């Protein structure tokens, strides 16, 4: 059982969380979005070996947040409320 840290609730067991996608997968919008751009948004993931920036939902408080963790060692290196990090930190 991994320990994830919700920015609002602190460290909790991983079973309280649900994966909500890769961080930084911006939604392409507007009339000019090509099939390739949209397909990439839907299906292409970087799936890194090592440090990974992800979105997780803490089911018990309902907050979505950014969790940085290592897919190889499972070390959690940080968690951020979305409003606090969306602009200044890029994966």
């Amino acid at each position: 059982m991994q320990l994830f840290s919700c920015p609002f609730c602190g460290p909790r067991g991983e079973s309280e969380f649900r994966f909500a996608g890769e961080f930084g997968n911006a939604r392409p919008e507007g009339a000019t979005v090509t099939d390739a751009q949209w397909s990439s948004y839907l299906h292409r993931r970087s799936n890194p070996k090592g440090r990974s920036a992800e979105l997780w939902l803490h089911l018990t408080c309902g907050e979505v947040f950014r969790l940085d963790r290592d897919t190889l060692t499972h070390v959690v290196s940080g968690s951020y409320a979305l409003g606090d990090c969306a602009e200044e930190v890029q994966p």
Partner: protein
Amino acid sequence: MTAFRVEGAGRIDRARPLLFHFDDVEVRGFAGDTIASALLASGVNVVGRSFKYHRPRGVWGFGVEDPNSLVDIAAPVVGANAQATTTLAFDGMRVKSVNGRPNVARDRGRFIDLFARFMPAGFYYKTFMFPNWHLFEPSVRAMSGFGRVDADAELPRSAEQINRAVDVLVVGAGPAGLLAALRAAEAGRSVLLVEQGGTVGGSLLVRTAAIDGRDGVTWTAEMLQRLAERGATVMTRTTAFGVYDHGLVALNEKGQGGRPDRLWRIRPGHVVLATGAIERPLPFANNDLPGVRSAEAALAYLRHHGIATGRKVVVATNNGLAYETAEALAAAGVDVTLVDSRRDAGIVPKGYGLLTGRSVVAAEGRGEVAGVRLDDGSRLVADSVVVSGGFTPTVHLYCQARGKLVWDAVAAAFVPGGPLAGLSLAGAVTGAFDLAGVFASVGTALQPIGVAAGALPAVAAGQPYAIAAAWPKPGAEGRVFIDLQHDVTVKDVELAARENYTSVEHLKRYTALGMAGDQGKTSNLNGIALMAELTGRTIPEVGTTTYRPPFTPVPLSSLAGWRSGGLFNPPRRLVLENVHRDAGASLREYGGWLRPAFYGDGPEVEAVAREARRAREAVALFDGSPLGKIEVCGPEAAAFVDFVYYNAMATLPVGRCRYGLMLAESGVVFDDGVLMRLDANRFVVSCSSSHVAAVQAHLEAWRQDRFDRKRLFIHNATPALATLTLSGPQARPLLETLDLGLALDDAALPHMAFASGAFDGVPVRVSRVSFTGDRSYELVIGSDRAEALWTRLMAAGAAFGITPLGTEALMVLRAEKGYIVIGKDSDGLTLPVDLGVTAPLRRKKGEFIGRRSLVSPEAQRPDRKQLVGLVVEDGEAPLVTGAHGVETRDGAKRSIGYVTSSYVSPGLGRPIALGLIERGASRHGEVIDIQHQRTMRQARIAAPCAFDPAGERLNG
């Protein structure tokens, strides 16, 4: 064999004798005996038959390392494959031997060993290939393996699972663990010390020691006393079996006297592994004969249970630690000869014979050991041979925690490469096999947590370990066993090397070395060393296989805990469940909720037809409480619902409802339902009953992603509110008798509108939405008032011919209308256009979830599967749900879709069905083939709505 109890020796309670049965043999022992020690003392030589060759096997070890003595326990609590060496014996227990029929002493399968030379490693893969492995599998499985699960046995009681956090977890309560635990406790840390054996002390209970002028047993008792004074917790019969992510350590605490085991999940600030070491066998021919056992185990049986392993014993060793076994047995009156493969150990024997520079090349005897042959050709008579091939540090937990091993040439063993973050090591696991070294390692182990070890206990010097490695040699004559539990011999490893399975992982899988229940605790290193020799590599070059949890087998009941039976996946319960039961409901699980399927006695088909007919002819009351009621409020609520729905929702007037679809970004229909607008900034999302949590999470994720979270809030009010739905032509007159304080005429409350009233002073929301196709009123009221409302409606409804409506009948009514259930009449590819909902895509201006996917090439394909009705000829049986529509193209039969819902419609008097069929929307009137298994039928494609297509009954 002649193992016997030594008068006055051991720590068993001779005042409390016990008696149990091993197969049909009466076995006597004393309180404190394990099954293995009682068997040994009672002269039971053969405790098991080997996995593959059915060779007789005796007790080899003392604890979890023993490869031979698996038994089934038949009473009082059933357990398959218990280790006789770690299971306490108690009076009246019934123990059964495994892999021997009728029993291990007279095993009919023992002839198999005669064919052993034809059954090397890989035998099954090579032999039973043709025509098909499954032809041979049943008999091979019956011939091999160990215990049997009694399918009729009562399930074990549920295990407790307990979470605990401590500052320091110490694994292993030998001298190192005891000292480390005490020092940490003295420094004010909360300490948990766990020991897999039944007693604390480890090697101090087996070997003589002098620590600070006390003997080892006295010192242990003092340490326990001081640990108790410091508030440390000490748990025995508790195995730390796994180290998991983020430092979680899992423990299994053995239950005693029929009590179930307990699982502990420990979050330690720091772990000290003081897990000790395990003795290896020596490689010589027939080293698996009953009567051959570990020298350390022989000493442990003498000191713990007062058992001498034989009357004439050969001790064979390549190191100094077996000398104490020889000395102790000799002191107990046993005739002992010690055979040391080292030339000159400089030790003066005390009361036993000593041969140095000699090694055992074969054990001799039929069915049990009768003597040994040495490398100079001489023979020694013996009724037991005890061996020490050196000690292997128990590094399993260290490796599970991703520690890397290094080869220690002096200790001839893999040892931990050093401490890890949050984990350090003390004692024999570090390769220190003398007491002074063990205590010194405690100081190192405590450094990372800033605890000083202080003055270390003064110890008398013991026999130096001074091992001269004796690895298995290629070309050895006879049957030299490496893995006793899986019957792997030197020849099997040689075959693996010859066939190029030289990687340690291939060696393991090809020969099954180390893959048995004991996971190679005694055998892996010998196998690796032999492979190194065969391939001209060093032992560290061959390396070890990956260590994975569990260290020892864990009962599935421990891992399951309380999550079994009715608690495995408990259904959610309706607030009105008792009311439904009183009304004769048959309850069934629908989407995680326990709900009425139908009411009353009699065949289900008739009950469903009766309810459905009454709902069309008079009025029916349905408990729809699980229906989602997710409130969306705030200044951005209108923009939000417009974005999350496929349909235009910002234009929904206050007081009105609108049916809509929610899509995923892939365009696939995610949920459907009705949206209500309570006021300008407040909506209620009414989503599918089984889908509320998923929809709420979906809405939350989008709210937080792109809306101002201070101007938009989502609240799931589903559990707080009950939904009771009246449906049918008599619904309105019935509702009027309740005097809810609101106008029910169609001008004031038309279809797809709602109004608020009060029932006995409690607010009730009344909505005109219909899932049956008939005039319906959805009444939403606080859950605590649901029973009163239900009771009043049923009582007043008697005059109107009311029936309670079960879920099965509702499914029939909605299917007659072609109303879909998401996930049943749609699948993971269904787009809204496939359901015939095309207007929003053409007309809606704003952005919404999934929009771009609906104009992709995939969405534009002409051959998409579309929702249709399927009609069979009059008098025929209904189609089978899941049956495929098929067509033949280019000579090949292919699926063109499938039946999603199928019922007999009481209203229409014929079967009805819905399906997803390729190009279905443009094929109304066509007859297609429908195949179910081997039967082929025909059905005509029609519009999904089979009943009242004009929708006149909604206002009827």
